[in-house]
C-alpha cells in the first residue's frame, strides 16, 4: 500500500520533470537571442558561425537536439556550458550547495520568526500585541524579497555597516573546506570564526528571503491556532490546569500546523525562486546568480541544467511536505 503510493509519486515526479525539460528546452530556443552570435567577435564569417553551430549541435532540428540532450541527461551528461566551457553538471553542483544553504537558512528563519509571532499573537489574542503582529506581518508581506534586500543593504550595509553586503565569504580567508556546503562544514569542523564570516554574508539575503514567508506563516498559523483554541479538547486542557502557553504548544500547535505546512511547502518553492534575484543583489555565489548570467549569455545547456535542478528541488520539496503531513496527521497514516 505504502510502496504503491511511493511508486506512484515517483512516476508523477518523472513525468513532471520531463514536462519541465520539454518546456524549458523549447522556450529558450524560441526566445530571441543567439548564443553563437554572442560568442564570436564582430566580423566572423558565415563559415565560422556554421562551424561553431555544428560544434554545439545547434544546426540540427529542435526535436533532434532535444533527444540528444535528453539521452545525455539520462546518462548524467548535461552537456557543456557555452559561455563557461565547462561541464554543466559540475558547474551546477558547485553552486547548488550555496543556494541550498541560503534557502534553508531563510526557511528556518521564516519558521522561527513567523511561528513565534503566531504563537505570541494567538496567546495574546484580542490585545494590542496581536494588532502589532498583524501590522508587522502586513508590512513584511507587502514588500517583496528583493526590495527587502535593498532596504537591508541600506540599513545594515551602508548606514550601520555590521554585515557584509557582497559575496558568500570574505575573499582573503583561507578555506579548508572539501565540500561546497561551507556553512554546514564550518560548523562540523568547529571553525566558528568561518561560520561567523559566512553568516555575516548570508544573514541579510536570508532575512530578505525570509520576511515575506515569515509574515505568511505568522498570519496563517495564528488564524489556525485561534480556531483550534476554541475547540473542546483545548478547553478540557485548560480545565486540567495547563497554562495558555502550554495549551498552545501541547494541544493546539500540531493540529493547527497542518494548513500552514501545506502553504509553507508551496511558498518555499517561491522562496527558492526568489534566490535568483536576491543572490544577484548580494553578489552571492549561488545557483540563482549563475542562472542570471546563463540567461544573459544565452547559455542554453547551462539554463537547461539549472532549471532542471530547480524543478527537481521543487518536486522533492513537495514530496517532503506530503510525508510530513502524513507524519503529523495520524488519521492519514492509517488511511
Amino acid at each position, binding site marked *: 500500500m505504502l510502496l504503491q503510493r511511493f511508486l506512484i509519486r515517483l512516476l508523477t515526479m518523472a513525468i513532471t520533470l520531463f514536462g519541465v525539460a520539454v518546456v524549458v528546452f523549447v522556450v529558450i530556443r524560441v526566445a530571441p537571442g543567439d548564443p553563437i552570435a554572442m560568442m564570436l567577435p564582430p566580423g566572423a564569417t558565415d563559415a565560422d558561425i556554421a562551424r561553431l553551430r555544428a560544434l554545439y549541435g545547434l544546426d540540427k532540428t529542435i526535436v533532434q537536439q532535444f533527444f540528444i540532450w535528453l539521452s545525455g541527461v539520462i546518462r548524467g551528461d548535461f552537456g557543456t556550458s557555452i559561455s563557461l566551457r565547462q561541464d554543466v553538471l559540475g558547474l551546477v553542483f558547485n553552486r547548488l550547495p550555496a543556494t541550498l544553504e541560503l534557502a534553508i537558512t531563510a526557511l528556518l528563519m521564516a519558521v522561527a520568526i513567523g511561528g513565534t509571532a503566531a504563537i505570541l499573537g494567538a496567546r495574546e489574542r484580542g490585545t494590542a500585541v496581536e494588532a502589532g503582529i498583524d501590522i508587522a506581518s502586513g508590512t513584511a508581506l507587502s514588500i517583496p524579497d528583493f526590495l527587502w534586500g535593498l532596504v537591508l543593504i541600506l540599513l545594515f550595509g551602508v548606514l550601520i555597516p555590521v554585515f557584509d553586503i557582497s559575496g558568500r565569504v570574505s575573499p582573503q580567508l583561507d578555506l579548508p573546506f572539501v565540500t561546497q556546503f561551507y556553512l554546514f562544514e564550518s560548523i562540523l569542523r568547529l571553525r566558528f570564526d568561518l561560520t561567523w564570516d559566512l553568516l555575516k554574508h548570508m544573514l541579510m539575503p536570508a532575512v530578505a528571503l525570509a520576511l515575506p514567508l515569515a509574515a505568511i506563516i505568522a498570519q496563517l498559523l495564528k488564524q489556525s491556532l485561534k480556531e483550534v483554541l476554541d475547540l473542546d479538547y483545548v478547553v478540557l486542557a485548560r480545565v*486540567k490546569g495547563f497554562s495558555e502557553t502550554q495549551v498552545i504548544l501541547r494541544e493546539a500547535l500540531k493540529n493547527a500546523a497542518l494548513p500552514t505546512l501545506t502553504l509553507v511547502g508551496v511558498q518555499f518553492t517561491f522562496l527558492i525562486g526568489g534566490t535568483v534575484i536576491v543572490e544577484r543583489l548580494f553578489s552571492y555565489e549561488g545557483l540563482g546568480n549563475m542562472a542570471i548570467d546563463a540567461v544573459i549569455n544565452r547559455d542554453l545547456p547551462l539554463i537547461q541544467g539549472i532549471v532542471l535542478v530547480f524543478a527537481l528541488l521543487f518536486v522533492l520539496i513537495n514530496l517532503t511536505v506530503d510525508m510530513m503531513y502524513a507524519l503529523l496527521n495520524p488519521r492519514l497514516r492509517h488511511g
Partner: protein
Amino acid sequence: MSAACLDIRNLSAVLANGQRVLRSVSLAVQPGEVRALVGESGAGKTMIGKAVLGVLPSSVHIVEGEMLLEGEDLGRLQPKARRTLIGARTALIPQDPLTALNPSRRIGPQMTDRLVRILGWSGQRADARIRQLLDEVQIRDPDRVLRSYPHELSGGMRQRVLIAAAFAAEPRLIVADEPTTALDVTVQKQILRLIAQLQREHGTAILFVTHDLGVVAKISQKVSVLYAGKVVEEADTAALFAAPQHAYTRALIAATPRYTDPLASLKPVDEAVLAGLAAEIAAAEQAWRPPHG
C-alpha cells in the same frame, strides 16, 4: 458545619453589549452531592459550569458575585494559582466526546498529562492509576485503548475514557456538561449508570448540567432549575418532582416525553407560563444595577 464543595453566590455575567446572561445565580454543591442544573438550551447552565472552571468565552464577563471552591474564593486568586487549584480539585466531563479528545495525540498521554504535569505524579504511578480507572469504566483492553488515537475509538468508548480521566485525580468536584447528550440512546443509559456508580464509589460532588429531567431524576439529589440565566427554583430532587413550586418547573415536567405515551405528553411550555417568566426576569432586571455604575 463544613464548607460547601462549591458555593456560588450572587453570580452575574454579562456579554460585551451589557446583556446579562447570568442573573444573580446562587447555588451550592455539598461534598459528595450531585446537583443537577436543568434548563432549556440558552438558559445559561453550561455558562455556570464554565465560569466555575475558569473557561468562559472571552465575550462573557463576570461582573459580580463569588465562586468558592472548598472555601477558596476563585475570584481572589492569581490566575496561575486559580488554574492550578481548578486543575487539582475539579474535572470536566464534556458534552461531546468526539471533539473533547485531541485528534493528534494518543489516549494514554491525554489521560495522564494532568496527573504527571500538574499534580507531579511519577509516570508509573499515573499509568497504574489510569489503568485502574479504565477498569472501573469497564474498558477491558486498556493497552489497546491507551495506544489508540481518538478516531480509532467509538463515541461511547471515548466518553468512558473521558470519565475515567475525570475521576483519575480524585477531584472534589466534577462538572458534567450534558455528558450523554451527544451519545446514542442505548449508550446514554450505560454512561449515566457509569457516572452514577463512580460518583458513589469515589464520593465526588458533581454539578450535573442537563436539559433532561429524566436524567435529573436518575442521578441527582438536588436540582436547580434555570431559566434565562436565573435560578427559578431549587429543591431536593424528590421534592421537586413530587411538588414543583414554580409554574415553569411544572411546565417542564409536563413537557418531558414519557416512553409509555410519547405523543400525549409532548406539549410545549404554556404561553402564560412564559409570559409570567418574562415579567419575572424584567422585574429582576429593573431591580439590578451593575456594580461600578
